[in-house]
């Protein structure tokens, strides 16, 4: 059966050029990047090159890039590292109800176990946070504000430039989880007042298990791991050379393709959104209508349940996900969707379609051909259960 992959927000296929660069490392470069000898220097050169590539793609300097194991670690390092570094003077953390679990659960953990004062802000029905709400939540003891750039479930893009600017005025460190948007949106830290930025290679055609945290020079960040002192002590542990090389190449490719891909995907996304809203009765678009990722379309179909929609579409050859991306058979409504003010019966019927480099107009049309009947079937069966 022909498969159509529409789950690029979950992960993306590794670009062949990335895979080849990584394979070359595994084949030819076995040194430890910290070693003095020729083998070590060869590995170090590759790590340096990748650091340059990542830095160049976001307008940072190479010294501001810390390699990590991925988005979750980057978020943890940002929140925990800043609060630990600033704890003598400031203990406040402000974040938003629609953040990824890597931020939200970390924030709650810090509030519970590290005496951090946590403020979680609500969003409007489009998933947007108003900068004024952030400004109002900041006080003289706020250490860090964390607001994601683009939401993983609903694609809404937050006004992080405004939020970053007001944080800077008040001496508050600003972190943004940009895992979904790096590679898709233009991000330049020379123009954007952000102090910390999390990113993850596998969201832009790189390998899983490697990511980075951008740390603006001068940002106070304590270390969480102790050990051999790699990454200037900010993230100690032997470098994942092949992964880091993959991240660098993926970042370079994403930067080169960004503008044309964004335009192409936005057009496909519009075709998809308009098609779904026209063909499926009682379909609700979740997230902001225009301030959203170029590749992200997300919906709720009241009376259907997300996991069943995903399973039924999978059997028809379409890889998609539900807002509550989940394989454990748990139909709890997504906290993000409930935060938009959707009722539970609507939120449970969520479907997320995220496009990517391989997506064609034919893929979108094929999905639009099968979706109305599948939603009707799942709705019909669910109605009896409820």
């Amino acid at each position: 059966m022909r498969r159509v992959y529409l789950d690029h927000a979950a992960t993306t296929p590794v670009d062949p050029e990335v895979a080849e660069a990584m394979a070359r490392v595994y084949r030819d470069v076995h040194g430890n990047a910290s070693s003095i000898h020729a083998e070590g220097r060869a590995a170090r050169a590759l790590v340096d090159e990748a650091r340059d590539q990542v830095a160049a793609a976001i307008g940072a300097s190479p010294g501001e890039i810390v390699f990590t194991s991925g988005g979750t670690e980057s978020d943890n390092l940002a929140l925990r590292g800043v609060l630990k570094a600033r704890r003598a003077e400031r203990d406040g953390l402000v974040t938003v109800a629609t953040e990824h679990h890597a931020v939200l659960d970390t924030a709650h953990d810090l509030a519970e176990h590290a005496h951090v004062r946590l403020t979680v802000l609500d969003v409007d029905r489009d998933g947007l946070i108003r900068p004024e709400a952030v400004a109002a939540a900041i006080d003289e003891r706020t250490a860090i504000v964390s607001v994601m750039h683009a939401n993983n479930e609903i694609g809404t893009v937050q006004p992080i430039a405004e939020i970053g600017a007001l944080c800077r005025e008040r001496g508050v460190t600003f972190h943004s989880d940009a895992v979904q948007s790096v590679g898709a949106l233009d991000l330049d830290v020379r123009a954007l007042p952000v102090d910390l930025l999390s990113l993850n290679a596998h969201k832009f055609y790189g390998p899983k298990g490697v990511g980075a945290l951008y740390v603006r020079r001068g940002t106070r960040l304590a270390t969480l791991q102790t050990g051999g002192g790699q990454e200037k002590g900010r993230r100690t542990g032997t470098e994942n050379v092949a992964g880091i090389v993959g991240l660098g190449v993926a970042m370079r490719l994403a930067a080169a393709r960004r503008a044309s891909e964004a335009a192409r995907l936005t057009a496909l996304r519009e075709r998809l959104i308009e098609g779904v809203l026209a063909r499926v009765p009682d379909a609700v678009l979740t997230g902001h209508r225009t301030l959203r990722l170029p590749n992200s379309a997300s919906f709720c179909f009241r009376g259907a349940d997300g996991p069943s929609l995903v399973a039924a579409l999978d059997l028809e050859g379409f890889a998609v996900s539900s807002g509550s991306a989940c394989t454990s058979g748990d139909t709890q409504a997504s906290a993000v969707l409930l935060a938009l003010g959707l009722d539970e019966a609507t939120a449970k019927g969520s479907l997320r379609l995220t496009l990517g480099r391989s997506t064609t107009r034919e893929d979108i049309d094929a999905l639009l051909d099968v979706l109305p009947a599948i939603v009707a079937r799942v709705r019909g069966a669910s109605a009896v259960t409820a």
Partner: protein
Amino acid sequence: MSRVFVAMSGGVDSSVAAALLAERGEDVVGVWMRLVPAGSQPDAPRCCGTDEAGEDARRAAGVLGIPFYALDYADVFGREVVGRFVDSYAGGETPNPCVSCNQHVKFEALMRDVVAKFGADRLATGHYARVEHGPRHRLLRAQDTAKDQSYALYMLGQRELARIEFPIGELPDKSMTRAIATRFGLPTAAKPDSMDICFIGGDYRTFVRERAPDAFAPGPVERADGTRIGEHGGIGTLTVGQRTGTGVATGERLYVLRLEPDRRAAVVGTREEISATTYQLRDVRFVADAPPAGRFRTEAVLRYRGTPLAGWVSVQADGATLELDTPALVAPGQAAVFYSGDEVIGGGVVSRIPAH
């Protein structure tokens, strides 16, 4: 090609059921039913609806290379199986949760979803029973009568049976099931068999007590003539037919003859006092969707793995009466299942209300 869904519990039987269907070249899809809410601590370590069982089911499906989905049935299981179980004990009956699960969860909620949501034609499970498909579908005991589970499937009618497959029921014995699991390299090959009440780990009384404390208020133990001979710890602790542990020093072997929940009384007596032959049944179902006759001979099985007892069934509009040839103590709440040889004819739930 027609598509068959297999309800995979994470145990060896349903894994082998999936393997046999896949080997036949069928378009097989594995589905695992979540039966307890995600992340909650189940009472029973081996409940098939827990995260761990779901992992086992997923791994087995992975070995077989079939699509696999986890679906959430915690609500319906909690209501129709656990809820009924507790209510039944609290009402002086002895429930059979496997019957409730088959009736309301597997062959109603899951069957409906499989057919309506996913457009499948059939549903297979790892039950030890056989379906003989034909103009009239028949439900039969498993080849391996020692493992037979047809008792708990009596409620299946023609509509359900038309879509059901029990591949395991055709196997001669359990060792064959395990051998097949080993041949397919299924990780579930050496998993122990599930326990009687899958969702309860320890004593069922503790489980019921936490949910229906009233069923554990003490009450009188009486002889049939009304003489009070002691006190019991609550009707939730007692089952009709059980030897009483009331410690009454009469030297006689006493059995619970009946429970009267309205006044919390347990009536006990000797084996000789067991005189009941006639029982009223409710929720009566027939595999053929209709009884073979208004009154018919049968061999009735009155508890899981029970010995068949000969008798008559008389069908009424709102149930049926079972008249046994010889007296027997039957616990209300249990299923009375009518057999003709190895064929299941139908059954019902034994009522606490005396037969009319």
